[in-house]
Structures are given as structure tokens and as C-alpha cells.
């Protein structure tokens, strides 16, 4: 050993060690293992859940996925096939889940529950459970309460138990977002008796219990969870709220390195990967080893936001100058690898009743410089461009390109990486002059997006602190018209606020991001959902 290792170069000897150990690996699976593999779908992503309950405090996105697959809602969305052949949820069609039918009137909606629906422990699901769950969502505070409010679901009194199988939801105002909001993740149905057992004075809604336990009746059960490493789901064989899912077992592993996730996909070791960088998806698409499904994220926009409260960005001319100085095409090619919808170069005067849609700016340095001069900043100025370090893959190259481009019109930009944990707190302060950020709304309606991002109520998503009376009037008018079904007024208002947002550009939409999934060729049934997480129920492994 001594002599040998001294003669060889070190690298050779280490590779020999690795090879020797790797050789006895049998490439053949035992029949039992092959069977297990056949029935198991292996998904790999960067992060795993921190909480199984979407009502919980600080539940992360992967936690939403657990909730979606392990709990039922009264209704869900039907699916539709998009022009490119991929499958997506259908925003406008609701299908029964826990409720088998419902009756919608101007003042309320009444749901009739399935007779045979049961929680995982076999207890029948009753309307009392539904009411308790909804009461919980509107009172517990934080994200669930906020989301319920978005559909005018605000008070426990709105939810009335008519009998064991019937629940009525009374409207406090007419709002066309109420029905869609009852089909998002938050109004999940919990096993009220089970959770109440674990409730305490300090924790009246049993949040501690549901954090690590499933108290629902959804299509999957969690059988193993090692935080930060893996979650294992088994199919609920008694699920009645839809056709029995095909996949018996889902293993969800967390693999922090994107390179490793890609390697796992390419070598066929993992079945599905979700959050790869765009570049990897673009290349996987080209090589054709695995299927890549790409969908535009509904109501989502990546943008540069400018703080409208403080100089110099309180000057509309400066904002327009910046909008003309963004290297849109470069960002599209080098940062997003073409996997995004362009949000620039629209035709002026052809505004659609839709959102997102392209704005009329293009990269035009001469105009940008002229606007800077008009604004009185011919000499330029210095500022800071901040981004969330958690999304550095896109943000970092993007900000470097923007920095380089803005330097040409005299704006000296320092790039500021904000750790993900601090991003929200920084946004709330609303003091960052220039940011690169992303927002998407679950409910895919223009007025919903504008209400959160441009309205003078100055919600946290109005990251620019943009406040304008006329804008508020247009947004409010659109919401009112939508509730009343006044199509003409709705169209005028939507066009109005879109035009205004383009003219005053408090934020510059750069692109509509996409959500891609890489799937092995034998996996089918992948569907795009508004929540941008996996729905295991439709997945099939051939």
C-alpha cells in the first residue's frame, strides 16, 4: 500500500479508491425493489416544508404543497389543455371536491358535502368540521386570514351549519373573488374534533398539532418526515373526493444544489424536479432526455421597482428614463434563457383587457439620456439596487446587466444583496430606492394584482409606495364592475389602470416568469396550478 500510493499521483490513487468501492454495485434491481420503484414517484426540490398546515405561522411554500395534497377543499378547479399541449388548472371552472354540489345566489352559496367522505382516521366529515376550519382561517391571523379576506370572507358568522352535510357561506358584499377564494389552499377542511384535543389556552386552534400532523382527509397521508431531508407520502386508499390517484407513494427529497438536481434528472434517478434554474430547463429541453413542461406564471411579473416617495425616483421622467435604459433583450437571453414572456415592446394605444401584458418601452439609450436631462439629472446620480439573495440565480445576473446599462445614462448603481430572511422586513420599510423583485397573485385577475401592487392603500406588495388618487379610483371601479358583472365599465377601468401604470412606471415589468417542471418520460399527468406546487393526484408513472 505504502509503495503503491507513493508512486501513483495522488489523484489516481483516490480515483482507484472510489472505483473499487463503486464496482460491486449491482446495476440490477431486485424484483421487490423494482416493484417499489415502479409505484413510487421521486420528486427532488431545493426546500422542504417547515409546517404541514397552511394556517400555521410562517408556513413556507413547500408546506403549501403538503396541505394541498393531504387536505380537501369544498371545490377545486377543472383542468384544461393549453395550446402547447400542457395541462393547466382552469381558472373559470370549479369542480366538486368535498362538496358534491353547491347552489350560488347573490347573497350566499350553499354546499352539500359528500356522504362518504372521511378523515384519515375514518371519522365522517361533517359541515361542523368545515365551519370550524373556515372560522379558524378567518380568525387565526397572518396569511390565511389575509387570503380569506381577499375573497371577502372575514367573519365566522358568514359560515352557517345548516345540517350535518350542508354548509352555507353568507356574503358580506358581492365579490366575484369569493368563489375562486374558496378553491385556493387556505380553506382546507380539518378534523375539528382531533385538532381540538390538542388545543390549549395559548393555542386555541391547535396550530402546534397540525404543524407536524395531518388532520385532514385528503388524497395523501404523510408517513415519514425528516425536516430538511425528506417527506414520504402514501396514497389514502379510502379517498372519495375524486378519482383515486395512480401513484401509491411519493418520496420528496430535498437536494440543495441545483447542479445535483439536474444530474439526478439526467441520469434518471429522480422522476420530477421543479425548481431548477431556467438555463437547466432550457438545455434539458434541447437534449430531450427528459420532458420539460413550461408554463407562464399567471398574474406574475418580474420587475424593477422604484421608490416613488423619495427623490430621484419620485420624478416620473427619471422613472421613464430608467424604463428606456433597461437591457430587456439581454435579460431575456442571458438571464432567463428565453423561458419567460416578454413584458416590453408593446404597441402604444393597443392596451388589452388583460394582465400581464407588454408595456410600450424598449431599450433606447438616446431617449433615456434625453429624459434624464429633462428631469434635471443630466449628470446622473448614485443609488442602490437591492435584491433578495434567495433568488440570486435570476437576480444577480439581472442586476449586473441593469447596473451596467444604467451606468450609461449616468446612474451609478451599487448592488445590495439582501438575505432572504431580511427581504420582507426591508420591503416593509419601503425605503429601498431601487429593487428587483417578483410578485404573483394566486387569483388571476388584473384588478386583484393592481389592488395589491398599485393601490394607494400601500400594501406591502406596493413595493414602490406608489400613491395616486386616480389610480385608486380606476382600481376600485374595476372591482365594483367585476362584482356587478358590468363588462363595459370593467374593460374601461382595466385599460385605464394598465395605461396609467405604463405612463407613470412606478415599477417596470421586465418579464412574465415561467414555471417549469422536468419529468422523466414515463411520468405523465403533470398539471400547472396557480399555487405553483405539485399536485400528486394527477401524476402517473408508466
Amino acid at each position, binding site marked *: 500500500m505504502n509503495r503503491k500510493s507513493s508512486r501513483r499521483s495522488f489523484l489516481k490513487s483516490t480515483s482507484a479508491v472510489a472505483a473499487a468501492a463503486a464496482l460491486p454495485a449491482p446495476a440490477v434491481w431486485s424484483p421487490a425493489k423494482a416493484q417499489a420503484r415502479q409505484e413510487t414517484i421521486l420528486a427532488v426540490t431545493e426546500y422542504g416544508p417547515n409546517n404541514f398546515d397552511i394556517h400555521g405561522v410562517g408556513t413556507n411554500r413547500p408546506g403549501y404543497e403538503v396541505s394541498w395534497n393531504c387536505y380537501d377543499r369544498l371545490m377545486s378547479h377543472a383542468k384544461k389543455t393549453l395550446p402547447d399541449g400542457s395541462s393547466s388548472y382552469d381558472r373559470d371552472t370549479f369542480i366538486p371536491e368535498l362538496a358534491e354540489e353547491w347552489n350560488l345566489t347573490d347573497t350566499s352559496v350553499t354546499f352539500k358535502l359528500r356522504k362518504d367522505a372521511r378523515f384519515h382516521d375514518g371519522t365522517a366529515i361533517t359541515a361542523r368540521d368545515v365551519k370550524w376550519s373556515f372560522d379558524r382561517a378567518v380568525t387565526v391571523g397572518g396569511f390565511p386570514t389575509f387570503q380569506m379576506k381577499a375573497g371577502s370572507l372575514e367573519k365566522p358568522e358568514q359560515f352557517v351549519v345548516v345540517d350535518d352535510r350542508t354548509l352555507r357561506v353568507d356574503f358580506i358584499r358581492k365579490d366575484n373573488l369569493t368563489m375562486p377564494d374558496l378553491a385556493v389552499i387556505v380553506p382546507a377542511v380539518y378534523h375539528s374534533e382531533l385538532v381540538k384535543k390538542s388545543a390549549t389556552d395559548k393555542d386555541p386552534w391547535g396550530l402546534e398539532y397540525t404543524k407536524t400532523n395531518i388532520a385532514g382527509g385528503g388524497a395523501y397521508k404523510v408517513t415519514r418526515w425528516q425536516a430538511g431531508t425528506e417527506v414520504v407520502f402514501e396514497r389514502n386508499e379510502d379517498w372519495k373526493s375524486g378519482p383515486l390517484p395512480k401513484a401509491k407513494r411519493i418520496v420528496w427529497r430535498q437536494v440543495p*444544489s*441545483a*447542479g*445535483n438536481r*439536474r*444530474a439526478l434528472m*439526467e441520469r434518471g434517478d429522480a422522476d420530477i424536479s421543479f425548481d431548477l*434554474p431556467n*438555463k*437547466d430547463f432550457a*438545455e434539458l429541453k434541447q437534449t430531450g432526455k427528459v420532458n420539460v413542461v413550461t408554463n407562464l406564471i399567471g398574474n406574475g411579473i418580474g420587475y424593477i421597482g422604484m421608490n416613488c416617495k423619495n427623490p430621484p425616483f419620485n420624478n416620473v421622467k427619471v422613472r421613464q428614463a430608467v424604463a428606456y435604459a433597461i437591457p430587456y433583450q*439581454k435579460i431575456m*437571453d*442571458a*438571464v432567463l434563457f428565453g423561458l419567460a414572456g416578454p413584458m416590453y415592446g408593446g404597441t402604444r394605444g393597443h392596451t388589452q383587457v388583460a394582465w400581464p401584458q407588454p408595456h410600450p418601452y424598449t431599450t433606447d439609450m438616446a431617449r433615456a439620456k434625453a429624459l434624464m436631462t429633462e428631469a434635471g439629472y443630466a449628470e446622473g446620480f448614485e443609488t442602490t439596487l437591492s435584491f433578495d*439573495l434567495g433568488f*440570486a*440565480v435570476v437576480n*444577480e*445576473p439581472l*442586476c*449586473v*446587466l441593469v*447596473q*451596467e446599462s444604467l451606468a450609461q445614462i449616468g446612474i451609478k448603481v*451599487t*448592488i*445590495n*444583496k439582501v*438575505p432572504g430572511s431580511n427581504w420582507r422586513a426591508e420591503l416593509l420599510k419601503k425605503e429601498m430606492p431601487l429593487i428587483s423583485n417578483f410578485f404573483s397573485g394566486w387569483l388571476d385577475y388584473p384588478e386583484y394584482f393592481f389592488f395589491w401592487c398599485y393601490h394607494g392603500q400601500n400594501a406591502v406588495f406596493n413595493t414602490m409606495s406608489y400613491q395616486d388618487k386616480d389610480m385608486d379610483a380606476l382600481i376600485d371601479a374595476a372591482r365594483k364592475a367585476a362584482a356587478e358583472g358590468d363588462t363595459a365599465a370593467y374593460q374601461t377601468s382595466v385599460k385605464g389602470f394598465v395605461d396609467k401604470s405604463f405612463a407613470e412606471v412606478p415599477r417596470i415589468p421586465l418579464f412574465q416568469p415561467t414555471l417549469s417542471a422536468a419529468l422523466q418520460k414515463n411520468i405523465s399527468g403533470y398539471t400547472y396550478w396557480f399555487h405553483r406546487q405539485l399536485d400528486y393526484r394527477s401524476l402517473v408513472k408508466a
Partner: protein
Amino acid sequence: MTDIAAGKPQAHATGLVATISHIRYVLGDNRVTAFAFGLFVLIVLAALFGPLIVPYDALASNTSVALRPPSLSHWFGTDQLGRDVFSRVIVATRLDLLIAIASVALVFLMGGLAGVAAGFFGGWTDRIVGRIADTIMAFPLFVLAMGIVAALGNTVQNIVLATAIVNFPLYARVARAEANVRREAGFVQAARLSGNGEWRILLGHILPNIMPIMIVQMSLTMGYAILNAAGLSFIGLGVRPPTPEWGIMVAEGAAFMVSGEWWIAFFPGLALMVAVFCFNLLGDGLRDIVDPQRRT
């Protein structure tokens, strides 16, 4: 990765001529050290003149040639934004060297002086310095560095500071041991008899006397300082983009490794390795010069 063994009293060959001839002897005898010295000269040249000689602007993007493999026009290929990797690697030398030198100088000021004082005065000074060093040693060092940079903000200054703090115990211990064995040495007694104050003896006599050993220590920690800064960059606590820095370039390139664009991470990684390698070998070689008996 240096040894922490305390030194023994040495009678050093003095006189400039003797030293130079000794250096020549060691370099001539030890080709490895000569090689490391050559590398060191190259690195210093790159740090001084790098920005003047590189073929491309290290910051200028050119998305039309993004992600090109190494070629005649781009020796080390190009990165995601079409920047020339060769130019960036060369330009980064200055910053990485600066981080290393600054952190080593800082830790010498903090740890070296504290250690000398502890070794010389003993008593409470010794106990306090010892406790501080013990406490720092009990930390997982890299995580401590991470914590400092995360808490104070990721700037070059804080990276330097964190690296210096993490190395504090090493310097304090070596300096303490060296000063301790000299506190009653003949030249110290002589200085004391001729009426010098304690501080004067400490700074004017002891410190210069242990400088050679401290310099060896510094050379050996230079490499560690660069690795530490690179590790911090790798987990996202590095310098601000688009500043070229080896660690951050490896971190960025890591994502491209699996898709076959190995050059983005490989060349900065190689530069990093060569620099650290050079400082380590040089440290060994310097030790031979300063202290031939302790050659390991």
C-alpha cells in the same frame, strides 16, 4: 492548517549576509520552495498589473458570446453574461490578495500583540488573553466567521475582520509561547538593566526578536485567509457583484458544472488553489529559513 506547537528558544544566525546566504542555500537546496517563490512573484505581478494587462474589461458583459468554452480569443472561456473568465480571474487576484494580506496584518496586530503581552507580562494579562483565545477556539471557526459576516454585513472589511478574529487564537498562542521563553533572556535582562520600561522592552526588543516566527505564521495563514473568504462567498456571504473574486466565481460557476460549462468554476478554483498552495509552500520554506531545526 499550521502547527500550533510552541517554539523553543533559538539562537538565530544574525547578520544580513548570513541570512541572505542562508536564503540562497535553502532556495537552491529546496526546489519546491524556489518554485513557490516563483509563483508568489507571479501572483504579486498579477495583483499589481493585472487590470492593465488583461485582454477584456472584467466587468463588461457581452451576452452575444455568453458561455463560450475556452478558445484563443477567450483563454478561460466566458461566463453567463459573456464576461471573459481569464480577465476576471486575473483581476480578482488583487482583491483576494488584499483580503488575505489585510486579514493577516489585522490578526497580527490583534493576536500577535496580545500574545506577546500575555507571554511577557504573564498574570492577569495572560489569563485574559488565554480565555479569549480558548473561547474563540471552542467555536466552530467557519461558522463563527459566517456569523460575524452575516451580522455585520457582507463587505470586504467584515470578511477581513471575521478571518482575523477566527485566526486570533493561533497568533496569540504562538506569540505568547515565543515571548514567554524570552522574558528572562539575556538580551531582555540587558535592556532592563539599561533602564528600559517594560513596554519598551516588549515592543522594542521582544517583538522584533519573534518577528521571523510570526512572519512564517502569517505566510501560512494567508492561504487559510483566502480559503476562508472563498468559503464565505460560496454560501452567499461574499463581496458584492459584479466584483470579480475567486470564491464567488467558483460559487457562481458551480451551478454550470453539471451542464458541462466546467470552465466558469474550474479556472477561478484553480487560481484559488494555486494561490493557497503557493502561500503554504512558501510558509514551509520560510520556516526552513527562519528555523531550520523545526522543519517538518
